[in-house]
């Protein structure tokens, strides 16, 4: 989907964009920090809340609904994740209600009532009773928050991605990933094994106490304003990615794709919920912020080859540097 935005929405997107660089170099690390917490950028701010229902809220949720209708495999839930899914739902709705005044979660008898005035949703449910919701609890949460959701079960001193509702994956597939361990999932990531950041991150997550939240940020690129770049829909977007190296309107087509990822230990099931929120910003908008321009140029210049390859920037780097310079 290529989205056309009004000027005020576009301006807000720049202001709220979670710019991923703090210095003029980028290296993989276990870059986790306590969440939430406001982070200033050169032109604005992000990160004040864990969930971020913004100007694109209704449009992104409509898109998720369409994707799930087309391809139900984006939602996976192994049977033992039922308790974790309910735990995630309650945590997520509480968090959303605490973030957006247009939403409330009320106790009513032995159940709850969820009201979302932005979507016109009103839903009563009883905790743990699957029949009380129109869809599974994880799907329902996915219909209310923009974030993609993965649930990790902890056992045998490892983490396993045993459930998820992920429509905006960046070049991976929830259906393929379901049931994999944290280490298996990160198998394709270069360098990390040598530097040990991935195993270290897993140790950290295994020790994460109930109720605590952490976040990290990850960046890559996308052709066009396209949230769904899952491997499952590669046929729809692969070609546009390949064309990017010599398209005419490069500054409008190349998008910086930033994921703000939150990791929270759920209180009741002990599962970890991994939330991925995707933000896209066209190169044309990056060029309007001189400090971002120079930072991005410097990062690209110094990025090691294996990371350049992994992030699919090898053929794009010269063009990018020409625009940024």
């Amino acid at each position, binding site marked *: 989907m290529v989205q056309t935005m009004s000027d005020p929405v576009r301006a807000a997107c720049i202001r709220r964009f979670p710019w991923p660089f703090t210095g003029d170099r980028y290296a993989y*690390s*276990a870059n986790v920090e306590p969440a939430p917490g406001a982070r200033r950028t050169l032109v604005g701010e992000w990160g004040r809340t864990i969930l971020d229902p913004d100007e694109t809220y209704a449009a992104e949720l409509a898109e998720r609904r369409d994707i799930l209708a087309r391809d139900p495999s984006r939602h996976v839930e192994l049977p033992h994740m039922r*308790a974790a899914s309910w735990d995630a739902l309650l945590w997520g709705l509480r968090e959303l209600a605490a973030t957006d005044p247009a939403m409330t979660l009320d106790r009513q008898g032995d159940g709850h009532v969820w009201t979302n005035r932005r979507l016109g949703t009103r839903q009563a449910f009883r905790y743990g009773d699957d029949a009380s919701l129109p869809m599974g609890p994880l799907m329902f949460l996915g219909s209310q928050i923009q974030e993609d959701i993965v649930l990790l079960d902890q*056992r045998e001193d490892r983490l396993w991605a045993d459930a998820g509702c992920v429509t905006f994956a960046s070049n991976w597939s929830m259906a393929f990933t379901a049931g994999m361990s944290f280490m298996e999932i990160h198998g394709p990531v270069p360098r990390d094994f040598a530097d040990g950041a991935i195993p*270290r991150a897993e140790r950290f997550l295994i020790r994460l106490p109930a109720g605590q939240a952490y976040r990290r940020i990850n960046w890559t690129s996308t052709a066009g304003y396209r949230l769904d770049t899952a491997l499952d829909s590669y046929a729809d977007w692969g070609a546009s990615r390949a064309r990017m190296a010599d398209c005419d309107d490069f500054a409008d087509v190349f998008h910086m794709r930033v994921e703000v990822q939150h990791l929270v230990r759920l209180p*009741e*099931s*002990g599962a970890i919920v991994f939330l991925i929120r995707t933000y896209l910003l066209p190169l044309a908008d990056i060029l309007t912020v001189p400090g971002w321009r120079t930072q991005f140029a410097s990062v690209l210049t110094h990025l090691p080859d294996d990371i350049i390859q992994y992030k699919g920037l090898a053929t794009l780097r010269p063009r990018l540097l020409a625009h940024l310079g």
Partner: protein
Amino acid sequence: MSAPAGDLALRVERIVDVTPSVRGFVLRPADGGGLPSYAPGSHLVVACGDRRNAYSLTGEGHAPDSYAISVLHRPDGQGGSAWLHGVRPGQVLRCGRPRDAFAPVATARHHLLIAGGIGITPFLSHLWAARRWGRRVSVLYAVGAGAPVPHHAELTALAGDGLRILRGRAAMQAAMDQALRTQALGTHLYVCGPDGLMDSALALARGHGWPDERCHAERFGGVDAAEGAPFTVRLRRTGRDIAVAADASLLDALAAAGVEWPAMCRRGVCGECRMDNAAGTILHRDLVLSPAERAAQSCLMPCVSRAEGVLSLDL
């Protein structure tokens, strides 16, 4: 920035005699607010005078209005239980947030719970959750001959036919042997109770070929101190001494003394706050440093690591 989960102030609402030697405490937030849900097998760390003891939460972990703990009076113990037995309704206790270290394994097809004496307490929340989520559970519970059974009615209501109460060592040993010999593949074992009972249960399981991943034990008395002993840092460049209290990190103590130092995760994983050129007896608690770096005793992550005595820093 949301600080790590803060402590809870809980008012003793009610005290009940579970048995003549076991006292139950029902606790509610002193400020009238809500309480976090907790995972089955979670415990609460309670400040008992100058000690901190861990007690299993015995109620249902889902959206609780109150917490409940059951405390065995141990005349020969280290004073925590005697202190609690002197507490009266209305008194406010300082507690940590529930900690989860003995949760059921979600993929298990059956859960075999083996308890002795007061070791039954973590299994009450297991049984509550098992009922909610339809998990299959059986309980072997050893109680001294002629002694009252703590939480008997609740156990019967929750576990039904799955509950067996065994009187005396021999009866328990035979029941455990039989259960561990015949349990279907996919069963997980959880044991809590006196050391002798736990050791025999685990030895029997091993003897019958149970892999370690399917055996889970909760030993009492082992509260993992997030904090440590107080120590002193000496800033070499200025000659200043800064005291690091037992409940503060080195990083916090430096910040409180006006010494700025970069940090990110504050959990010993990201490596951002690394300090070099340190000298002293460093107690490493991070996940970042290599064994060689640890052994060198000259660098540390001040967000989690501590020292004994005096630590000298190049500041």
